[in-house]
């Protein structure tokens, strides 16, 4: 990071109009399809958006149960939309359980749309309602649109002649049609998608399209209006070519880009685990183009196979989540010791132990930084947003190959699943990754170093006359032979540390901040807290507070001028979804009394939570350094 970057800190003054919609229903109701299609339509209408699915933990829970509720939230508006939204403007509740478990997300005065047909005695009981909430007055304070979605759908699809089961399944498309009416949205692309998706089942196509149209017509005929809640459609994204992307897909595409940019055979070796498996699925779907995927027998086999692949001249990659990451620690030490490139991706979830596998947390930072025996330093990067996963893995690969080092990338369950529009990069702007394989036998030794990067040579088996041995026992500087020499061990330990320290010079030239470039409080974040912090800081800026936001993409080594930036602010606060892990690093490195704002509920931060906490710190700061106008 350079000072230019700090100069580039921008003031995000006007967030523009936004709308938050949340669809909630039974696992079997097709909520995720509904949400996904709605998001696509919103995107095609040129709105900025962030979506967040909220799956049940169970694979398939009994219908109508509270733990079987599946939800999908979307905030949309213009460029300024960077979170899925704290409070919901419009809640679709397809059954009592969905209403019960999601009502607290709705803002006061918000709009509830329910399928009245689902509010029958049995479902009410399953959800734990003693009385029908639609009738007992408990929803006063909200606006209610009570619609018999199930029977309206049944009526609409009746002409297509499909059976009752399929008719029931079309409910989500009926609701999608209604949503298009309420919030804007073009049915044509959705119809095209339905046609291609169900091409082998013409009656399904017919019924879904009929439902979609009927829902739209219903809204039109009844002149339904979401009122203020629809203001998001009044804002637009800036011009450009976009696609909507989740963190998982962006990361997968980033790895594909690494393959294309480097020419290396990417060798992705992993063991399934939530929420990392989706990346394996994405890469497997590439069918061997650029990337070989290997489902190993466990996480240790995954990472050691990846190390083997890197030794053989591929680029080994392994991904996991907490429990699996923990199992990789021994082998990570080997990768550090033998100095081979390697990417290890941790899609963090709530811990400790099995914890809450589907919920995000940022509590593996310590593990990434410090979770190896012996002195085994390595770079740690973290994407701030779903789309940023793309360039972060490219940077990680570049560092790994340039410095001959394993690199850890910390994502989380929120980034992996959330989606946002991503302005597609111009491929010409992506720098190639140029691994230099040693071929010259003259003077070759496996542990001599490049004077700049301190990287050792990468000598692929199969290269004539470079046969050599590497291993986990301490290696003699230069020859790599086993050495117990005290001076050698001291030197090698220092060299390994110095090599990683030099990665700070690699220049991750991201814009990494916004808000004030000096002032009362610098808010530091990393990873998926980006949106919540940025929105909170914007609000405080608009309220006249001299607050800056610095979001670290590279956590180790820290940017070289970070100390200088910190010095420009009266105080420092670190916001993270753990009990205070980055803050410890900032405090020890810079001896600043950095304050810690944390949350470990398995939920992403809400903007309001961060804002309130920051206000508290600002109010407590003894001598505000400055006030901005």
């Amino acid at each position, binding site marked *: 990071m350079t000072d230019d970057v700090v100069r580039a800190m921008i003031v995000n003054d006007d967030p523009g109009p936004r709308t938050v919609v949340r669809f909630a229903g039974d696992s079997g109701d097709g909520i995720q399809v509904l949400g996904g299609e709605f998001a696509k339509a919103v*995107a*095609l209408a040129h709105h900025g958006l962030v979506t967040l699915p909220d799956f049940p933990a169970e694979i398939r829970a009994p219908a109508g149960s509270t733990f079987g509720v599946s939800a999908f939230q979307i905030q949309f508006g213009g460029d300024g939309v960077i979170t899925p939204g704290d409070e919901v403007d419009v809640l679709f509740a397809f059954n009592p359980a969905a209403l019960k478990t999601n009502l607290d997300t709705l803002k006061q005065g918000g709009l509830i749309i329910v399928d009245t047909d689902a509010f029958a005695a049995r479902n009410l009981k399953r959800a734990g309602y003693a009385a029908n909430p639609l009738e007992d007055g408990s929803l006063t304070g909200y606006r209610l649109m009570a619609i018999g979605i199930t029977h309206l759908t049944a009526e609409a699809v009746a002409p297509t002649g499909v059976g009752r089961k399929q008719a029931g399944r079309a409910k989500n498309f009926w609701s999608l049609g209604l949503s298009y009416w309420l919030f804007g949205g073009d049915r044509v692309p959705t119809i095209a998608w339905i046609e291609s998706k169900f091409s082998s089942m013409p009656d399904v196509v017919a019924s879904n399209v009929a439902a979609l149209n009927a829902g739209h017509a219903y809204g039109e005929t009844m002149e339904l209006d979401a009122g203020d809640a629809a203001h998001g459609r009044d804002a637009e*994204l*800036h*011009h450009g*070519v*976009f*696609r*909507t992307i989740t963190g998982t897909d962006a990361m997968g*595409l980033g790895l*594909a*880009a690494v*393959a*294309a*940019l480097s*020419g290396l*055979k990417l*060798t992705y070796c992993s063991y399934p685990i939530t929420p990392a498996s989706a990346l394996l699925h994405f890469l497997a779907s*590439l*069918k*061997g*183009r*650029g*990337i*070989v995927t*290997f489902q*190993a*027998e*466990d996480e*240790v*086999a*995954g990472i*050691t*196979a*990846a190390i*083997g*692949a*890197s*030794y*053989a*001249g*591929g680029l080994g990659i392994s991904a996991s989540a907490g429990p699996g990451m923990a199992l990789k620690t021994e*082998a990570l030490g*080997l990768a550090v010791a*033998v100095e081979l490139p390697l990417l290890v991706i941790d899609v963090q979830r709530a811990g400790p132990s099995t914890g809450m596998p589907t919920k995000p947390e940022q509590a593996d930072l310590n593990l990434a930084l410090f979770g190896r025996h012996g002195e085994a330093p390595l770079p740690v990067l973290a994407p701030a947003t779903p789309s940023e996963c793309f360039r972060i893995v490219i940077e990680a690969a570049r560092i790994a190959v340039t410095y001959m080092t394993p690199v850890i990338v910390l994502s989380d369950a929120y980034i992996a699943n959330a989606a946002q*529009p991503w302005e*597609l990069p111009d*491929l010409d702007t992506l720098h190639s990754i140029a691994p230099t394989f040693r071929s010259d036998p003259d003077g070759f030794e496996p542990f001599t170093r490049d004077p700049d990067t301190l990287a050792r040579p990468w000598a*692929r*088996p*199969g290269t*004539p006359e*470079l*046969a*050599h*041995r*590497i*291993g*986990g026992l301490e290696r003699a500087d230069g020859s790599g032979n*086993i050495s117990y020499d005290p001076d050698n061990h001291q030197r090698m330990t220092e060299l390994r540390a110095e090599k990683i320290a030099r990665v700070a010079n690699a220049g991750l030239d991201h814009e990494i901040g916004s808000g004030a470039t000096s002032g009362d409080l610098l808010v530091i974040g990393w990873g998926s807290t980006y949106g919540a912090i940025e929105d909170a800081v914007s609000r405080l800026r608009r309220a006249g507070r001299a607050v800056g936001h610095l979001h670290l993409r590279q956590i180790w080594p820290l940017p070289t001028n970070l100390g200088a930036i910190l010095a420009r602010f009266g105080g420092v606060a670190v916001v993270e979804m753990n009990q205070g892990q980055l803050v410890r690093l900032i405090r020890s490195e810079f001896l600043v009394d950095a304050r810690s704002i944390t949350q470990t509920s398995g939920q992403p931060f809400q903007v309001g939570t961060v804002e309130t906490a920051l206000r508290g710190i600002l109010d407590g700061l003894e001598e505000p350094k400055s006030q901005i106008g």
Partner: protein
Amino acid sequence: MNRIINLTPKDFETDQEVRWCPGCGDYAILKSMRKVLAEVGRDPDEVVVVSGIGCAARLPYYLETYGFHSIHGRAPSLATGIKLANPELDVWVVGGDGDFLAIGANHLMHILRRNVDVNLVLFNNAVYGLTKGQSSPTSVPGTRSPSTPDGSVDPAVNPAMLALGGNGGFVARTADTLQDHLPEVLLRAHGFNGAAFVEVLQNCIVYNDNAFGDLTSKKNRAENTVIVRHGEPMLFGADNDRGLVYEPVRGEFRVTENAAEASAHDETNWALAAALARLDDPAAPTPLGVFYCAPREDYLSAREARIPYAPLSLGDLNDLLYADSWRA
């Protein structure tokens, strides 16, 4: 690429001093490995020897090929990764009974069932040599060791049987100092297109001397071992005058003094192979040789057939990226 035509075992010596205990059986295995590598004639620069940790696992440092002395138990997975990235390499995996059968047995089993084309050489000394003599998964119950001063309790693992049970396609046994048989078996393993498992009975002179009895001395070898070869009768004894008769119903053997009665070995017969692997009778010789060899498609070829790897061009990348895009 075949730069070197005539290789000798000497070509495989490194500049590193061999540091096993004087008298250790590992020396003999090293010697055979060098001999076999020379005989195979593969360019040493296309050979990779992978190991875990243990006395046995030091071997790569003594072979002038590519080598990776990794971490305890994980050599099979490392080797799998090497093959995934470059299926052309000739990969050997070596390790001790702790490495392969305690911490690493799971990876061993999985590389065997996948049939990754590597040669796995187990140095079975029935003890943890490097860590100074604790009992191992192949130690017989009652073994006194620093960790089991009153004698171990755990029944032993039978490595060859485990490999057979784990769907291994090539399973063999030999012994360290049999400088005729050991290379013969290693060559067979090398010739197998898939994961070939060779158990080498190896003497740890320091911590478990004579653990397998006298299998290799000129004097007793003939009586104490039976070398089985495909299609040949299973004969042993100084004058090949005794034999094994296969009693298939219970998968057992009977020793016969009538050589003509001896059964022939059939290395494609899993049941017979299992019976040989399981034969553990003081009155019968220890079977050595290729117990089982059932060629099937190797893992990398099967993968390549199903999901052929191709580099990803920038054009491909462009297509992937812009697949679902729209213009705002």
